[in-house]
């Protein structure tokens, strides 16, 4: 292992714009390997744009994004994914007309070994026994909570080194939100680096190792959950 291989995700001075309007204006942050790093911010602060920038869906105009020392900026999305990144997108985004099993299988799209894919299926079905019962059901016909399981399971089928999670609690009932955060913690305990983007401050900080606060396209605060829960930027970002 070279030194670069353990460097996690580094975002340096990233500017991203839709058309001409800058959404991100010089974002710097880091997701350390093996940790849960969170990015908090209200609607329109640019959180999802940062995820899109990392994935190459909305490529940044300036700055650098590296994962394990590999420059991601300029790579097409499938090559970003190939570096060992997986994403649980905002709003779950299951493929409605694919079955549960097909949704999971496409999560492992870049894996060719049938044995490895089967091993991951077993793991996901162990985490979410309900999905095993509903393999053949079309994902579009499932409840929001079940779709969340499909989306998380699909992200895990990649067996990622880094998992990007975009607003997992959005639109879910409080009980399911709590369950989701427990699952994220367990995923992290398996050694997967997590970069979590959320609006839900308290539960997010409760499971994070380190956090950033994004406001109007800039990082306005960062620190451990303890430090962040006391800073006025967190409160301003949400209530100001």
């Amino acid at each position, binding site marked *: 292992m070279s030194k670069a291989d353990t460097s996690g995700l580094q975002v340096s001075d990233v500017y991203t714009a839709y058309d001409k309007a800058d959404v991100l204006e010089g974002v710097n942050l880091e997701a350390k390997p093996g940790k849960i790093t969170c990015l908090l911010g209200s609607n329109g602060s640019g959180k999802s744009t940062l995820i899109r920038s990392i*994935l190459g*869906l909305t490529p940044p105009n300036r700055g650098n994004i590296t994962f394990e020392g590999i420059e991601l900026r300029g790579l*097409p*999305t*499938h090559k970003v*994914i*190939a570096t060992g990144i997986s*994403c649980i*997108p905002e709003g779950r*985004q299951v*493929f*409605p*007309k*694919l079955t549960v099993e*097909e949704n999971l*299988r*496409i*999560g492992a*799209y*870049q894996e060719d070994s049938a044995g490895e894919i089967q091993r991951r299926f077993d793991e996901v079905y162990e985490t979410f026994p309900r999905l095993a019962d509903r393999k053949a059901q*079309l994902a*579009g016909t499932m409840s929001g909570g079940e779709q969340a399981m499909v989306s998380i399971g*699909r992200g895990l089928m*990649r067996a990622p080194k880094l998992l990007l999670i975009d607003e997992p609690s959005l639109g879910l009932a409080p009980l399911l939100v709590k369950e989701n955060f427990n699952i994220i913690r367990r995923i992290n305990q398996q050694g997967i680096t997590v970069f979590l983007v959320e609006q839900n401050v308290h539960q997010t900080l409760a499971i994070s190792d380190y956090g950033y606060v994004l406001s109007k396209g800039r990082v306005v605060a960062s620190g451990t959950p303890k430090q962040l829960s006391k800073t006025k930027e967190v409160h301003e970002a949400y209530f100001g």
Partner: protein
Amino acid sequence: MDIGFLAQYLMNGLMLGMIYALVAVGFTLFFGVLDVIKFSHGDVLTVGAFAGLATFLGLEAAGISHPAIQILIVVIVSIVLIAALGAVIARTIVLPIRSAPPLNTLLITLMLGTVLREAVRLFYPQGANPQPFPALLPTNSLTLGNFNLRLDNVIMLVAGVAVIVGTQLLLNRTKLGLAIRAVAQDEETARTMGVNFTLIVLITFALGSGLAAFAGLMNGLYYNEINFGMGLLLGAIGFSSAIVGGLGNIYGAILGGFLFAGLQTIGAVALPFASAYKDVFAFGVIIAIMAWRPTGLIQEKISERV
């Protein structure tokens, strides 16, 4: 009416339905992955038929006259060439104008169709005239009263069914098919799953165009004649079939193709004094169906395709 006549009409309807379904599946695949209407599809079919004919003439000139070898090489060369043409059109014309309004894609591919059609007319030797297409399949026939069952028609029907079933299996049972369906449903999420979007689009256009080449060859073998304008009507029929079945739905396209052929056949049977009007009749009924069900016969339950 005589049962033999009816059987003859049925056979004819099945052959046409197969050809239309193959064209319609292409339209529906392109719409599925890119939300575009590619109007040059019919003329791509024409190029496929002419590529097949040129290959045949080349084989004759080279002294290769075994019919089984001839048909095999003609089919392979035509499909491979046209699949490549489809991918090139996607890469150089359709993908670059993706962010433009869909109407622009429709217009530009309409113009491309004209270019292809005129290219065949001008550059193929005697291209302005209909060209005889060789009977490459055994033409033994079985006559039962007024019904004349030809072996080549049976072979083509079986081959057509095999191609459609094969396409269906490719889409539903393979990793490639899974990627095509995922891209059709949600391009961005498919990319996020690691699917190489551009590659999948090119493969889909190659697949749809290869099916058109196959349909063009079937058409040539069935009528023993091809001409530079054949793709115009076949394109319009294939497009109508895809629309009436429910654009983006592969079963709908197949259903639409056979429906259109069925309507033409009914038109020809019911209007024996005016069978030249069978297309008018068929298109008229399609218009009526579209007025009744604007999104096609097989409606998408959830808002996505293929």
